[in-house]
């Protein structure tokens, strides 16, 4: 074995358990990055086995390696690059027939491929049997049975990879094809080295194109793959290696090549898989209810209701304990700092600035944790994809496919991944539309705002008020999409096509990795963005034109806020403190809450005492329940946080578009808050 670190690329269809397998090796210690220039996510981790280090790269799930989508192109280019030493093709062994198509494409790339047959536990449960002697014989690559969920076969897979790393081409493949079948001069040779041998007509073309490529590009490696891609009319390969082949290519052979690959797959399945007709009864039974033509939608709404109920009630109960801890910390800090003789300014910065800001946000961790836990459950169980089907009819009415609903649903968690998830939509206009309405789906960072203000002003009905914010956001999203549909009448929208995976019991480890990633994000945001925002807020509030001041009315912040008060007065938010909190909220939405702590000089606004204190202060300013409502509405709808705006800029590739969107959101927020406030004042 070489001493060089081996890089293993994990490739596979969506829903094949690739991420579970990857996590089984690397745990939660991942480096998530984007490829330079494009927002296609790759995850990286490392593992050690027998004193060797392996670098593992998890690539986006894909059904094929065409150049139709950016994701597939990027995946393909990365696999072809020198960076990857061995490809591990993860397949769902219980759905081998569909998974093998990608396998055949990967094998043609010419790099060492190891087939990992995942989900062997399900294969056994269903009484299916796979012939592990014949399968590698027919494919010419090593095939290793694994179960990521049960953690079996993991070490063997890495051993196989290590021993297979130098193998560029398969050993002799045992086909048992009838040589009479083919009149091709190299038929014998082809069958020795390639698992996938096409019809004579196509093999002839591959040979001819290969020869021409060799003439034009003498250094080209893997002529066969390039030739096949040119036959498939692959735009990316054709652009990179232009060649005049008008005399050879009378038609597009892609369809024929796909057909022949599946012909071979059927042969492989026929020989290597026994008892495959056993059905996954349980999934069908569950689907009878969950994707019922009439009941599907109410069931979905019920599930979402439950998710929010848990987020608010259980989350709030746990939050109580966090608050007690925070109070204790504040007191300890004041005590400690006074004891060491720290100045008034430093104590104020640490307690009123940092602890109030960052600590206040940390107390919401239970709510965030439960929300993401619920989302992880929905995703890992296989239900999420069904939502696309259930919502397809409604989404069709607003001019989007059911698939566009998935980014919107993820938007309840965080706008950033939700905007990135809009990539599943192929049509650019549909993607733009989805990106435009996704920020209206109330993200978890807005949750602290609702929790605080609704509990402050609405007591027992707090949960209803908070929940109505989610409904309002959804309503605004649908309304915006409807208007846009009206604007571009007659245009065909994206077509719904999505795999519905088998239902499974969510995997504890997968959920742990998912949730801990989100919690880590939240904590690091508290430690960075919110930390800085709290300090800046404290500075702006405690310094004025005459230097340090303990009277906030004299501060820079007050001056800035007062300039904008006239704009916010008609919507019931004409208080410089609130205006300033809203501006700071662009850094991150939670900052609205932490800023309130700093602005109103309350150590911890979310405790009972802090709340009563804030309630009194706001009340004395004339800020009542109606103003709170307008504030929540405005927070729901106005410009998303900086991170989200940056993501939108990256995904849309246009500053103009991003700017227009921000203006649109500000307008919508202002108009809606205006309507709520004015209508409310009329009736009350």
């Amino acid at each position: 074995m070489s001493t060089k670190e081996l890089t293993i690329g994990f490739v596979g269809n969506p829903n094949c358990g690739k991420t579970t397998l990857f996590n089984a090796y690397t745990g939660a210690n991942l480096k998530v990055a984007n490829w330079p220039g494009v927002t296609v996510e790759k995850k990286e981790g490392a593992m050690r086995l027998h004193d060797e280090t392996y670098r593992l790269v998890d690539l986006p799930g894909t059904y094929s390696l065409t150049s139709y989508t950016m994701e597939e192109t990027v995946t393909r280019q990365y696999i072809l690059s020198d960076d990857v030493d061995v490809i591990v093709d993860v397949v769902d062994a219980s759905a081998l027939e569909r998974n093998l198509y990608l396998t055949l494409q990967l094998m043609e790339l010419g790099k060492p491929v190891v087939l990992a047959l995942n989900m062997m536990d399900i294969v056994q449960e269903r009484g299916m049997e796979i012939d592990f002697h014949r399968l590698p014989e027919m494919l010419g690559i090593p095939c290793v049975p694994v179960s990521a969920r049960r953690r079996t076969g993991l070490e063997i897979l890495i051993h196989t990879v290590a021993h297979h790393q130098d193998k560029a081409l398969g050993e002799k493949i045992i086909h048992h094809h009838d040589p009479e079948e083919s009149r091709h001069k190299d038929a014998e040779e082809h069958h020795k080295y390639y698992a996938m041998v096409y019809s004579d007509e196509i093999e002839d073309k591959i040979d001819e194109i290969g020869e021409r490529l060799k003439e034009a590009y003498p250094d080209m490696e893997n002529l066969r793959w390039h030739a096949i891609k040119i036959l498939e009319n692959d735009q990316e390969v054709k652009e990179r290696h232009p060649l005049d082949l008008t005399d050879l290519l009378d038609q597009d052979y892609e369809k024929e090549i796909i057909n022949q690959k599946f012909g071979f797959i059927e042969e492989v399945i026929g020989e290597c898989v026994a008892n495959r007709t056993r059905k996954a009864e349980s999934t069908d039974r569950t689907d009878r209810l969950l994707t019922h033509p009439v009941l599907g939608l109410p069931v979905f709404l019920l599930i979402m209701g439950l998710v929010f109920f848990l987020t608010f009630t259980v989350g709030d109960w746990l939050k109580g304990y966090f608050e007690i801890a925070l109070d204790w910390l504040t007191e300890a800090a004041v005590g400690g700092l006074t004891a060491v003789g720290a100045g008034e300014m430093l104590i104020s910065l640490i307690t009123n600035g940092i602890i109030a800001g960052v600590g206040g946000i940390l107390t919401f961790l239970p709510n965030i944790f439960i929300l993401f836990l619920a989302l992880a459950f929905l995703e890992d169980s296989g239900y999420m994809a069904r939502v696309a089907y259930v919502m397809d009819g409604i989404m069709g009415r607003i001019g989007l496919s059911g698939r566009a609903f998935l980014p919107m649903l993820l938007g309840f968690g965080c706008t950033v991944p939700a905007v990135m998830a809009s990539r599943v939509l192929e049509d650019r206009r549909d993607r733009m539309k989805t990106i435009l309405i996704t920020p209206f789906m109330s993200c978890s960072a807005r949750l602290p705002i609702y929790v605080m203000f609704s509990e402050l002003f609405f007591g027992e009905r707090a949960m209803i008020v908070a929940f109505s914010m989610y409904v309002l956001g959804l309503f605004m999203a649908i309304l915006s999409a409807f208007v846009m549909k009206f604007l571009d009448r007659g245009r065909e929208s994206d077509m719904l096509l999505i795999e519905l995976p088998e239902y499974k019991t969510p995997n504890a480890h997968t959920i742990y990795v998912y949730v801990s990633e989100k919690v880590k994000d939240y904590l690091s945001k508290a430690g960075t963005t919110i930390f800085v925002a709290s300090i800046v807020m404290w500075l702006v509030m405690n310094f004025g034109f005459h230097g340090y001041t303990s009277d906030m009315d004299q501060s820079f912040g007050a001056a800035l806020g007062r300039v904008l008060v006239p704009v916010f007065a008609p919507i019931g938010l004409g208080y410089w403190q609130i205006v300033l909190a809203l501006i700071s909220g662009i850094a991150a939405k939670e900052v609205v809450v932490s800023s309130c702590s700093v602005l109103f000089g309350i150590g911890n606004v979310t405790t009972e005492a802090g709340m009563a204190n804030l309630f009194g202060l706001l009340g004395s300013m004339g800020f009542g329940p109606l103003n709170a409502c307008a504030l929540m509405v405005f927070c729901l709808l106005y410009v998303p946080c900086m991170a989200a705006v940056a993501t939108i800029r990256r995904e849309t590739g246009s500053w103009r578009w991003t700017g227009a969107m921000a203006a649109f959101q500000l307008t919508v927020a202002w108009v809606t808050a205006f309507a709520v406030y004015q209508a409310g004042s009329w009736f009350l």
Partner: protein
Amino acid sequence: MKLYEGQKGSTLQVIHMELPVQTERRLEVLGMLEGTRITVVNRKKKGAMIIKIRGTRFAMGQSITECIEVKEV
């Protein structure tokens, strides 16, 4: 007949697809080729369907199911 006319639970054979090339390729890559047998697992009134292709379920919108010519087997 067109796919969207297919009854729940019926097995059908694909005869022809009249879709934008990209969508058609996408379906083919999933194993839905001319001649492939598919099963209708579930359907909505308007024509959105859950189809089983080679053992895997896929949800398809009406805009796809109305463009696929099938025959009963």
